[in-house]
């Protein structure tokens, strides 16, 4: 028996295989696909998806693009699910294999619209790239094309004609997010991925987290494009157009312009937004600092009352800045909707302040101001359309566009992004601290809250603002922070399936946390549904996370309550955190959106 040792030093059983004439040794149980990768051989895949750092894998073995020849076997084997056996001789690129792959691809293409030129995924589609790499010039199979109605929700468009039934979206929605909106339905030629009863997404329990969009290899799932509305607002001389940009955008936008993942483009981003013609270039980070003031105060208030024996005060307090997460608990745990903080998301806090405080300051009427947000997120598109975030029908945030949409807008506007000189955000709503930047990653919101809550509660200065124990990529993390003798237990979950676990614990009375941070997207907003597509490479998310912490470390001010413009905002306008005005503008309430089985006669 052969053994190799893994990084923990333990021995594991191995097998020896020959792959494209190379003899290699791999751990027993390794698939041919992974073995090939270890040997530096690329086998194309379509349905298979492996987000290594997040431990997410989709292998329905449905598409058969990855077939290889195993000598001695009659049929070609799908590399993504076939395990290496000792002595196997594998050919990954001989003529038989290449022909078979091309046939499979042509069959897929024979039931696929060929309107690539006007597809939202043009240039960023895995199927298109593959057709190009395989050199497909003609489709030798003619057949009926399946057609299905298009489904447009407030955030996501389903154009199922472009679906290749890889079922990645289904895996994301069911296994990772446990929302369970999507399933393969019908049979054969009629089969599609759809919500129950083939209803539209906006009638389902979809959270608009956009994780299905983030993994869809084709144009079957895309975001609702709001760039035209933004262009129109920018061209309207009667409008003052204000833009805010979320923390995670600066750590990912560069990828759309060919930069290394993890490149920070904060300065170029501000410059590009100014070139696009926005009148005021602000930062959602400002509102993130504001969120900490409100949410942190609420945390301390609930904690103090709870510790003083008021058992009506529920703990733990849950963060509420992620609208995907808000949608989730409104549908799935409505009876627990008094536990999350009432603080609005930074996007909405920004909109509310921009259209009151700031509009007054510059003497612009509410109706003449347009607030645009640049978000890593698709749930924000839905959030800004919620009725409770509008005054007399005028929304606090008019349009929310994704990181990807912004990249398109920049390219369309003939701006040479890579050559832009760094610029700063405008004031007052553009100043922010390191605490705000880390909102972009899992663990960041609660770390930011701890930095402020600690100092407010203890009256002492933090010696070290970095809380390494709250960082990382593990799906569920916990830590205890010493608030001057008072141990505060903190939980963190990202990905809604993990959030569900923590919620169930609370429901069952098994949770001992004081505060929990929840982000709908794996990795937090750096992995949001509106970010540049990672195409299955999860190291990109890690690089973005590192960038976020780098940006934080480089900031002079790293605690929200020290942001001078936040202090000014409270002095001039809001009074203090949780004041009546704050409640009115910065807090919200949640709804029961569950389906209940009601008995009728």
């Amino acid at each position, binding site marked *: 028996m052969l053994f190799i040792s893994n990084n923990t030093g333990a021995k594991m059983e191995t097998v020896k295989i020959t792959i494209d004439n190379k003899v290699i040794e791999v751990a027993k149980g390794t698939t041919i696909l992974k073995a090939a990768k270890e040997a530096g051989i690329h086998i194309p895949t379509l349905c298979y998806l492996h987000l290594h750092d997040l431990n997410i894998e989709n292998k329905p073995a449905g598409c058969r693009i990855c077939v290889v020849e195993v000598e001695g076997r009659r049929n070609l084997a799908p590399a993504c699910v076939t395990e290496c056996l000792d002595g196997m001789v594998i050919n990954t690129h001989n003529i038989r294999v290449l022909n078979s792959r091309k046939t499979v691809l042509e069959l897929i293409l024979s039931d696929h619209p060929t309107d690539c030129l006007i597809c939202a995924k043009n240039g960023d589609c895995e199927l298109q790239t593959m057709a190009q790499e395989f050199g497909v010039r003609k489709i030798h199979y003619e057949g009926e094309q399946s057609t299905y109605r298009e489904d447009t929700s407030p955030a996501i468009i389903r154009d199922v004609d472009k679906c290749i039934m890889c079922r990645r979206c289904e895996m994301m929605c*069911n296994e990772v997010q446990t*929302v*369970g*909106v*999507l*399933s*393969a*339905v*019908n*049979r054969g030629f009629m089969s599609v991925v*759809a*919500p*129950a*009863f*083939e209803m539209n997404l906006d009638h*389902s329990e979809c959270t608009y987290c956009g994780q299905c969009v983030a993994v869809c290899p084709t144009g079957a799932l895309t975001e609702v494009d709001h760039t035209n509305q933004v262009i129109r607002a920018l061209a309207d001389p009667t409008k003052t157009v204000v833009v805010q940009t979320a923390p995670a955008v600066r750590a990912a936008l560069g990828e759309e312009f060919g930069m290394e993942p993890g490149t920070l483009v904060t300065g170029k981003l501000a410059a590009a937004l100014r070139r696009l013609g926005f009148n005021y270039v602000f930062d959602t980070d400002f509102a993130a600092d504001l969120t900490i003031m409100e949410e942190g105060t609420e945390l301390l208030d609930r904690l103090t009352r709870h510790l003083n024996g008021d058992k009506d005060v529920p703990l733990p307090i849950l963060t509420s800045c992620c609208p995907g997460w808000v949608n989730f608990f409104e549908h799935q745990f409505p009876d627990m909707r008094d536990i999350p903080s009432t603080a609005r998301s930074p996007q909405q806090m920004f909109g509310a302040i921009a259209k009151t405080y700031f509009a007054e300051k510059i003497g612009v009427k509410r109706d003449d101001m347009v607030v645009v947000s640049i978000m890593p997120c698709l749930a924000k598109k839905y959030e800004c359309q919620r009725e409770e975030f509008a005054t007399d029908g005028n929304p606090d945030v008019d349009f929310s566009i994704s990181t990807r949409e912004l990249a398109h807008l920049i390219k369309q506007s003939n701006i040479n992004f890579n050559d832009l000189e760094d610029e700063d955000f405008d004031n007052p709503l553009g100043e922010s601290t390191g605490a705000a930047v880390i909102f972009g990653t899992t663990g960041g919101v609660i770390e930011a809250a701890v930095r402020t809550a600690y100092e407010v509660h203890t009256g002492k200065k933090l010696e070290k603002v970095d809380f390494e124990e709250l960082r990382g990529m593990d799906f569920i993390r916990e830590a205890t922070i010493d608030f001057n003798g008072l141990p505060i237990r903190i939980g963190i979950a990202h990905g809604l399936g993990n959030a569900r676990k923590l919620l169930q614990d609370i429901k069952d009375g098994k949770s001992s946390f004081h505060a929990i941070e929840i982000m709908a997207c794996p990795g937090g907003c750096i992995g949001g549904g509106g970010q540049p597509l990672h195409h299955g490479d999860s190291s990109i998310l890690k690089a973005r996370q590192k960038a976020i912490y780098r940006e934080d470390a480089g900031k002079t001010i790293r605690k929200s309550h020290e942001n001078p413009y936040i202090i000014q905002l409270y002095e001039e306008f809001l009074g203090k955190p949780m004041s009546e005005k704050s409640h009115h503008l910065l807090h919200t309430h949640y709804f*029961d*959106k*569950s*389906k*209940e*089985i*009601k*008995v*009728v*006669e």
Partner: protein
Amino acid sequence: MANIKLSAEKLDELKAICKSFKNDKGELINVLHKAQGLFGYLPAEVQEVIAKELSVSVAHVYGVVSFYSFFTMLPKGEYPVSICLGTACYVRGAEKVIDEFKRILNINVGETSPDGKFSLACLRCVGACGLAPVVLVGEKVYGRVAPDGVKDIVAEYTK
């Protein structure tokens, strides 16, 4: 809040069916089968309850219901018409008979007429090959049905 409408009695029976399979999601197909026996079809409400009881998503339940042609989401008509599509019946012109029913009733296979009177379904060999082509209306068997005999069968039930 969206409500799901079912009578208390039916709801209890449905839950009992789920329970008889230990609310095991692996038994979904059997649960659906029994439920269809109880209701005659599987309306959305019933699928919602089953999903909840077995802790699976409604989308998944619907996925299964829509995959198997045996399951139907439409109530059967007062007079369910079934046409045998077994080999013998097929060879002797069952398809033309189906087309005639479709034309006269103005519904497709798997559908129920708007007045709730007739529904149309296809069956595998019903074991009466000597009588091919065979049509069943409820329990009643009609043999050697020719397309021009269809209107008489329909007339029997529309009097």
